[in-house]
């Protein structure tokens, strides 16, 4: 079933982390080829609880702690996938991609194409993204634009528990490499400020959220806010706050960057005439530019006001809180941008 099929209302609430783990566990039950490997995915349960309880349930042959050798263990996942296993490899922080990117983009992402479709690489690469808790320039980035730019891998970015589960299930079942980027701030961790929506109803059975389909997280008529991951919640907060003032934001949660759901974006902008992209990745040469370009190459006259962006302004993520929050896409910055658009 897909999430949208869920007929009966769902009561049970889970954190995003638990929803993600539930999907992995259900798929591990279903398919013995699925296994998990990465740093501290075993006894620790994943630094951001992305694998909690899996070791206890499935044992060390299927939940494997690795050395700090990202190139070796991601490559191992690739080779295992080539031989028909379905690995889930965790890169602890996306910020570490620089030590292993060759395996990711020159191998994981290209083998299927280079082989003319004869070799499949069915694996999931999970990684924690995002800042907001003063972890500094090497532990706070999103970098999804970097992955989305390079062909051959799907890229998904859940913002809430139900999507986290459904996208994980879809990612595991996909015959392609899927990069699954989870923001620490949506995981619902007890030791980090969490958005209220990071614990929410999740269906019990297995289901897929289709990869490549954005969600309209909130319908609106005045401004289209295209965003993803944690920023979806900031956008929703702003939307709720501005609604009483008669400003109705439509919040589009991309959920997937590759494939990118251009139709949903353009359709929304066609109705609202105003586009704001909110992105916790760096501003330039990334997601925000691409989203705006997709509209401008379809029909720039849809934009009744200049397109706007709230993103990290091409600066490494600073450590000190006042600096970090000056560059993050906060509700404040989003609100100002929305107001700027409606007053343009």
């Amino acid at each position, binding site marked *: 079933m897909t999430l949208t099929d869920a007929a009966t209302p769902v009561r049970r609430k889970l954190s995003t982390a638990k929803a993600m783990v539930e999907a992995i566990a259900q798929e591990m039950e279903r398919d013995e080829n699925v296994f998990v490997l990465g740093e501290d995915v075993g006894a620790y349960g994943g630094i951001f609880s992305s694998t909690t309880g899996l070791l206890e349930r499935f044992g060390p042959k299927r939940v494997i702690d690795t*050395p700090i050798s990202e*190139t070796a263990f991601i*490559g191992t996942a690739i080779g*295992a*996938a080539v*031989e028909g296993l379905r690995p889930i490899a965790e890169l602890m922080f996306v910020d570490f991609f620089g030590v292993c990117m060759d395996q990711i983009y020159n191998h994981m992402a290209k*083998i299927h194409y280079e*082989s*003319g479709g004869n070799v499949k690489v069915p694996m999931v690469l999970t990684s924690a993204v995002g800042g907001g808790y003063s972890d500094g320039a090497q532990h706070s980035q999103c970098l999804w634009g970097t992955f989305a730019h390079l062909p051959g891998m*799907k890229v998904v970015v859940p913002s809430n528990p139900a999507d986290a589960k459904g996208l994980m299930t879809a990612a595991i079942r996909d015959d392609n490499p899927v990069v699954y980027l989870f923001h620490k701030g949506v995981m619902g961790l007890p030791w980090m400020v969490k958005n209220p929506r990071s614990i929410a109803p999740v269906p019990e059975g297995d289901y897929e959220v289709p990869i490549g389909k954005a969600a309209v997280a909130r319908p609106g008529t005045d401004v289209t806010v295209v965003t993803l991951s944690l920023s979806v919640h900031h956008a929703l907060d702003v939307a709720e706050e501005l609604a009483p003032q008669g400003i109705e934001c439509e919040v589009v949660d991309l959920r997937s960057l590759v494939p990118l759901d251009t139709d949903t974006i353009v359709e929304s902008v066609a109705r609202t005439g105003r586009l704001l992209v909110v992105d916790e990745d760096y501003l330039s040469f990334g997601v925000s530019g691409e989203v705006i370009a997709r509209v401008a190459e379809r029909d720039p006259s849809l934009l009744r006001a200049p397109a706007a962006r709230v993103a990290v302004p091409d600066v490494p993520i600073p450590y000190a809180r006042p600096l970090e929050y000056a560059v993050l896409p906060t509700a404040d910055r989003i609100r100002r941008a929305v107001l700027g658009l409606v007053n343009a």
Partner: protein
Amino acid sequence: MEPERRLEAYRTMVLIRTYEEAILREYHADKKPVFDIGAGLVPGEMHLSAGQEPVAAGVCAHLTTEDAVTATHRPHHFAIAHGVNLEKMTAEIFGRATGLGRGRGGHMHLFDPETHFSCSGIIAEGYPPALGQALAFQRRGTDRVAVAVTGEGAANQGAFHESLNLAALWRLPVVFVVEDNDWGISVPRSASTSVTSNAVRAAGYGIPGERVKDNSVEEVHRAAGQAVARARAGEGPSLIEVHTLRLWGHFEGDAQGYRSDLDSVPSRDPLPAYEQQLRADGILDDALVSGISAEAGERVEAAIAFAKQSPEPDPATAADFVFASA
């Protein structure tokens, strides 16, 4: 080595050399009078393996097509020795729709699921996926092994270290092969590697390491036999370094102006040497030599003919196969 196997090794080496000579010919055929790397029926970089036949022939003699081999930017000798379909491989090198990768891969990207063969153009980065293949073999309770190949230059890349450690730690059935041909493009081993033998590095991972000093298929065969047996027995990985020879340039078009050892190269060719040895031992004679050579020539020319007759891929399909369909 039994006479039968010695003959077989010779046969494999001849096939490889015949192949490389034919590719050499085809590669340059339509790049005259002015060499243009992108021109002709076989464009692009071309790294030929002439001189390194003993390594591939010696190692692959221990393998079946159930075993995996990951090779490098210089992959032909291992592909041939491992039994990759010659026609499909050649068609790929010619960029044809019938090639292993439907023309998308090229000479550095030969993927053959039937023989679990693959290669990569990024230095040492073919090692890690080999671990995964070995892991899959191990988990399934088979005695299949994965052979991972690099050059001596590549042994200074981080992936080399990570792979040896991980394979040793998990006792993966891998045989690491380092082809030391003295050069990494223009950089001699002495300017790239702080030790004179990569075999000593094996101790840093607690695995056996051996340097085969001669470019001898029989010595390689012996060392590889131990390593493969160890891997099949579940005792984990081994490293074999072979001191071999890059008979030609790094890639075609390489003038080798930097190459201090150039004069001595022809005299070190392992193929006539092995032929002589087998003749001396009464295993080869004129008739056999010309028979083997003729057979190799036929197979190679048939593969080249297949490639040339095959259709080019349709440009309209360029974006196909980025993703697998559900």
